[in-house]
């Protein structure tokens, strides 16, 4: 592997309370990266409704010593499965308001198929493996969200 290639295969994970700049993150994925033609990004935001209730805000808790390690494991698995270049995963914690960004997954690859698939794979496993918990503030008060079976099935579908 030559130097250019090594530089272009980095993985960066950030668990942070602060917001992030989507455009800047895309720029970082693209800068000095002329061997990858595809950039696929996903970002998740706090929506104003869930299960028929008006949502006012979201609180995100995590297990600090474990979160990054688990995300790195998920990304490693994706790297073994698809030919991807740069990977950036950001997940926010703490108090979030409606419309706030929660999560970002950005991936580059030579061709689009690898980046599309790896992005979805990382999100699907982040949902069911990474130790984050959401507490929702709705018109009825505060509730911890329950894990969804559909998310579990979505992740399991990758091993079929």
């Amino acid at each position, binding site marked *: 592997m030559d130097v250019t290639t090594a530089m272009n295969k980095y993985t960066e994970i950030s668990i942070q309370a602060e917001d992030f700049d989507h455009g800047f993150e895309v720029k970082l994925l693209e800068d000095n990266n002329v061997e990858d033609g595809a950039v696929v990004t996903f970002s998740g935001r706090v929506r104003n409704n869930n299960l028929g209730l008006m949502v006012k805000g979201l609180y995100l808790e995590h297990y600090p010593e474990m979160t990054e390690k688990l995300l790195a494991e998920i990304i490693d698995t994706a790297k073994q499965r698809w030919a991807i270049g740069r990977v950036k995963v950001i*997940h926010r914690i703490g108090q979030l308001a409606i419309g706030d960004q929660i999560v970002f997954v950005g991936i580059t690859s030579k061709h689009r198929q690898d980046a599309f698939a790896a992005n979805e794979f990382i999100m699907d496993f982040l949902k069911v493996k*990474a130790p984050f918990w*959401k507490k929702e503030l709705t018109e009825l008060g505060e509730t911890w969200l329950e894990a969804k079976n559909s998310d579990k099935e979505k992740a399991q579908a990758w091993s079929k």
Partner: protein
Amino acid sequence: MIKVIFFAALREQLGCDSIEISAENANTVTEVKITLGQKNDEWQTYLANNSLLCAVNHQMVNNDFSVKSGDEVAFFPPVTGG
């Protein structure tokens, strides 16, 4: 001693984020739960929840996993990030 930590809904149900227990009679994750459940009926009920997940030293494990003094055992509900 074994350090036990709790997260999210479980932390609030128990009103506790971390506790130290003796490693004596707590040789597996199940035995850690039994030891903790002896505190009171509420703890016993909440820790008996089958959907609870467990990590020992930041590694996801099953109930029959062995634990020893110095370990960090974490219990938490299924995760809901993303």
